[in-house]
């Protein structure tokens, strides 16, 4: 059975500016990724890793310079292809309130996708009620305007809009950013319920690892526009094979004062894409970098069932990290 979304060796490069200049700056390089039916995949990485560019490229908001995108096994090409993709895949935006037009009512907003895609809608009010009910909002909400909503409610309206055309895939960009913990839990529960009810697949873009742990079956880690690790979430968290993944996990603040981290897992900042380091691009920040890392670029290689990593010492790391994890959780 084909995947809902399949990216093969997708690349995005931006023009470097300068009139008549042909120079292009690579932002995403050879990214392959698939999201199966009903599967939830998380894309993680720091700002500047290319997460948002990837989502924009999938939705057709950013031209790709190489590779291909397929939806349900069919290649997505040109404006017509992306129009089909935008109908079958929905986007949940980071700033939920800002993504809702302030002068339209909630009832109009949740049924707007039908109008945009020219789908006949005999009973807009009934449909609005149905969609609001699906995301746990009362029917009276249909008469409200976006500024009257709380952050959690605006997020729910965003979800209702995304669900209007019964998509098979939802691309969610930081779905819980800026929400209070209790509201965060509500949104995550809602996403899980919709997945169970409607068989939705998710591509979740986030740097919130707690969120990844709860909702993603698989996780893909990006660094400077390249996939550096990929695998089933539980395995990657228990035994990260790439030092970058291990540092991200270790940097997460823990809600337990008895487990304070006294050392810094990762120093420095993401290098600029204008000056990519030689060899392994992570070597400038890697705690275990050796001589060969400065000169030889590692490839993305399989390391056991369903896992891949781009590190010369991936197998070793995975085993060591796995042992450490087992000791900590004994």
């Amino acid at each position: 059975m084909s995947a809902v979304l399949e990216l093969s060796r997708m690349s995005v490069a931006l023009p470097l500016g300068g009139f008549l200049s042909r120079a292009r700056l690579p932002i995403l390089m050879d990214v392959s990724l698939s999201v199966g039916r009903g599967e939830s995949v998380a894309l993680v990485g720091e700002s500047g890793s290319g997460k948002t560019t990837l989502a924009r490229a999938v939705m057709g908001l950013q031209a790709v310079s190489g590779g291909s995108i397929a939806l349900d096994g069919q290649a997505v090409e040109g404006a017509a292809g992306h129009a089909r993709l935008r109908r079958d895949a929905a986007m949940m935006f980071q700033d939920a309130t800002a993504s809702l037009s302030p002068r339209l009512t909630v009832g109009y907003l949740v049924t707007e996708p039908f109008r945009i895609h020219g789908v006949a809608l005999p009973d807009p009010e009934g449909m609005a009620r149905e969609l609001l009910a699906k995301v746990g909002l009362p029917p009276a909400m249909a008469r409200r305007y976006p500024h009257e909503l709380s952050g959690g409610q605006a997020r729910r309206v965003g979800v209702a809009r995304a669900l209007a055309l019964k998509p098979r895939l939802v691309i969610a960009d930081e779905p819980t950013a800026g929400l209070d913990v209790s509201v965060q839990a509500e949104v995550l529960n809602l996403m899980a319920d919709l997945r169970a009810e409607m068989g939705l697949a998710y591509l979740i873009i986030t740097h919130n690892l707690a969120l990844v742990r709860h909702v993603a079956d698989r996780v893909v880690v990006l660094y400077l526009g390249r996939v550096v690790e990929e695998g089933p979430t539980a395995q990657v968290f228990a035994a990260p094979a790439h030092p970058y993944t291990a540092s991200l996990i270790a940097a997460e603040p823990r809600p337990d004062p008895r487990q304070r981290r006294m050392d810094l897992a990762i120093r420095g900042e993401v290098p600029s894409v204008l000056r990519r380091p030689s060899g392994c691009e992570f070597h400038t920040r890697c705690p275990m970098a050796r001589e060969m890392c400065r000169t030889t670029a590692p490839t993305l290689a399989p390391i056991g069932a369903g896992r891949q990593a781009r590190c010369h010492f991936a197998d070793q790391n995975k085993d060591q990290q796995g042992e450490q994890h087992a000791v900590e959780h004994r």
Partner: protein
Amino acid sequence: MSVLSVEGLSVSYRVPGGRLQAVRDVSLSVGRGEVLGIMGESGCGKSTLAAAMIGLLPQGAEVAAGAIRLNGTDMLRLPGEEQRRLRGQRIAMVFQDPMTAFNPVLTIGRQLADFVGAHGGGKGAAEIAGMLERVGIPDPGRCLGRYPHELSGGMRQRVAIAAALLMQPDVLIADEPTTALDVTMEAQIIHLLRDLRTSFDGAIVVVTHHLGVIAELCDRVAVMYAGEVVEEAGVDALFHDPRHPYTRALLSCDPAVVMPGSGHLPTIGGRIPDLTALPAGCAFAARCGMAEAGCGAPVPRHRGAGRSVLCHRSAA
């Protein structure tokens, strides 16, 4: 002795249809070398409290009662000009998005020099560069010649902290200092603030809704709900032996503490009460699993060793 203490502070806003009681009878204090966390969800009054501490309450806000003492002096009783001067020199603030705190068309060096000049410091470029180095900026000389947009979010936050420290304040208030940052930068800023706690001889107040930041950084924590401090305790006691039902509910629904694969995450049903028409008695009762008829009566504050709890049904 505490550097900053808030005593019985109440702040309200005039809104159409009445008064919104944003901060209600809050008492807190923080000493030198101590990090106090103020934790709560949106609308709980934590930002209004921070604004009141630094004297930046918006138009329409009114201090209905209470005192804010800096080294013993009640700032609210001082004449306007003196109050401004005292706060400007002795209390510094770091905001969530440091981009908004800088002027985009001036270099970092120029802004820091102006800033120090305005507060009567008269410090030289060497001192400014030294401070940038202390907050972990790798090449301070080059940083001084840059514009705010040329720095990453993490670097801007470091510069904002350096600017605050150049004043040698008694109190540093950080409002959601890591919310706009990546997890890696967040960890670095937490480490920086932790280091400062020992090297900078002042008090630090951290306002955040992020439980992880509180646990990593604070010594003591005040939990706010609907404008009141419902529980105050040492950080270890708060996370390992929370007493107020709201604190317990909040800690239990953080996705970072719940084991994955355990199905639905716990949530707190209902919403915070309307702050213009507060219920009699406990403000959390409508959402509380332990509530009973008696919770409608005025709520007692129980005090125990190093903690206080505002609840009918839990002891300190």
